[in-house]
């Protein structure tokens, strides 16, 4: 990973984090777009799994700062998802829109699953509703947004490094 590629990756990451804290609250959807998981996934496929785990940990900690009651759950989820994404990057990101969409969808859904289960806040019907309805919807929206961002940010996104 040369310097130019690293700088481009950091710019994309910064843009997506900024979108996460500006556009997402501005839209205010019930099933929100998670720009942070998109940023983590795009960064994870460009670095080694260990570095991806660190990126996921830091991003998750940042996300958890707003919810002290479930502090650490986001870090746990993002770490796991980032590591797996980096490990599976050879499978995904084959410049195929459908595969990339599935990648974003599964990444977001998996992160939500880990967070919801680790929080142990929801139970019964609420848990099922969150896991089977709102989380997939949010993952779907995130997937669509991720694909749009892939097209828009293509000049800044090089081919992911193959492990």
């Amino acid at each position, binding site marked *: 990973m040369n310097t130019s590629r690293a700088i481009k990756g950091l710019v994309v990451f910064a843009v997506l*984090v*900024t979108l996460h*804290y*500006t*556009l*997402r*609250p*501005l*839209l*205010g959807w019930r099933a929100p777009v998670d720009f942070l998981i998109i940023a983590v996934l795009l960064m994870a496929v460009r670095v*080694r*799994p*260990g*570095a991806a*785990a*660190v990126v*996921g*940990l830091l991003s*998750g*900690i*940042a996300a*958890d*700062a*707003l*919810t*002290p*009651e479930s*502090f*650490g*759950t986001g*870090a*746990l989820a993002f*770490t*796991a998802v980032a*590591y797996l994404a980096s490990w599976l990057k050879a499978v995904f990101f084959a410049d195929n829109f459908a595969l990339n969409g599935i990648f974003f969808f599964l990444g977001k859904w998996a992160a939500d699953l880990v967070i919801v289960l*680790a929080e142990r806040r929801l139970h019964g019907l609420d848990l099922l509703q969150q896991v089977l309805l709102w989380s997939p919807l949010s993952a779907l929206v995130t997937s669509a947004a991720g694909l749009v961002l892939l097209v828009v940010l293509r000049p800044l996104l090089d081919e992911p490094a193959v492990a």
Partner: protein
Amino acid sequence: MARTARSSNSGADTVLLIVCLVLALIAVVLPGDMRRPVAEALRRSALAPLLKLQGAAERGRAAIAQHDATVVDRDSMAVRAMTIASLESENERLRRILGLAQRLRWGFVSAEVLHGKGLGEEFTVALTAGDAAGVRRLSPVVAPEGLVGMVTSTDPQTAQAIVWSHPDFRVSAMSTDGKAFGIVRPHIGGTGASRYLLEMSNVPFRNSLATGALIVSSGLGGTYPRGIPIGTVMQELTTAEGWARTYLIRPSVSPGDVTSVMVLSPQKVQTGVASVWTSVAAADSAARAIANAGDDAARRAALAELAARHAVTDSMSVDDSTDVNESGVRPPRPPAPGDSTLRAQKPGDSVVRAPRPTSPGDTTVRRRRRRPPADSVPPVAAPPRAP
């Protein structure tokens, strides 16, 4: 070699993963009183700019959500603001009506004017007071600005009145100095805006009226008491008659704007309304004069004049018995300090009154009323025909 490097990288990745997972798990199991300081420290340091951005975005979203309600509120305010002008004018008008009622004191009936459909010219209006309230046929209808018209028919609850724009409207009028008399009628021949003017005809040729002169009812004919303002002279009209002049009059009252009026009772017509409108003009001019004389020098001069007047009054009271004995005429009472009228000195008056300087806009000087020459008295205003 490459395999060794790859396996060492995998080992490092695994170690990093384990470290990250352990840290995340530690964060999860941290007790509440330790989580909050960590989260707060993050919010105050690294996340502060991002949270500021999020706060701005939340405010933007709230503004968007409230936009419709804000627009509705703004529109409501705009509508209310549009009505403020009419409310203010109505308030002013009601205050003036109240002031006129206090000056008339008795012999009137207050009524609201019910305009018609507002299509074209309206010569008649309905009043919300009728027989039951004491409104009688041929009673004058007045407003604070002056004459509005005359009642033509009544029923127990309402009355019908013609306004001055009615073709049959006639009123005997005169100038305020009593020199020129004439008949005021609508300016029927006028076109456009001049249709809504009055004309004063049959003014003797030797009497000319200056532009801006106030025309009031003369009291001749018995329908309208003397002294109700009708309008002001605009210009002299050229007519074929060589023995009389005709003037165009700007009415004091606009019938379309009148909402509240007073109907004078027959008793009040007989008693007269003299000084009701003229005292208003006097009070206004006096107030203007006081407002204009705000500088200290003028105030001091006024005080000096007042002191001089008191001195003259005192000397007169001392010489009172002597004056009566010599001339047989009791001198008039000296004017009170607040008296706003100034009478012209009689030729044979033995009492010397100090003339009070008047401001340019002061109209409080009343001259002795001169009776018009017998040949200048115009014919009595004929009552209007039934519309």
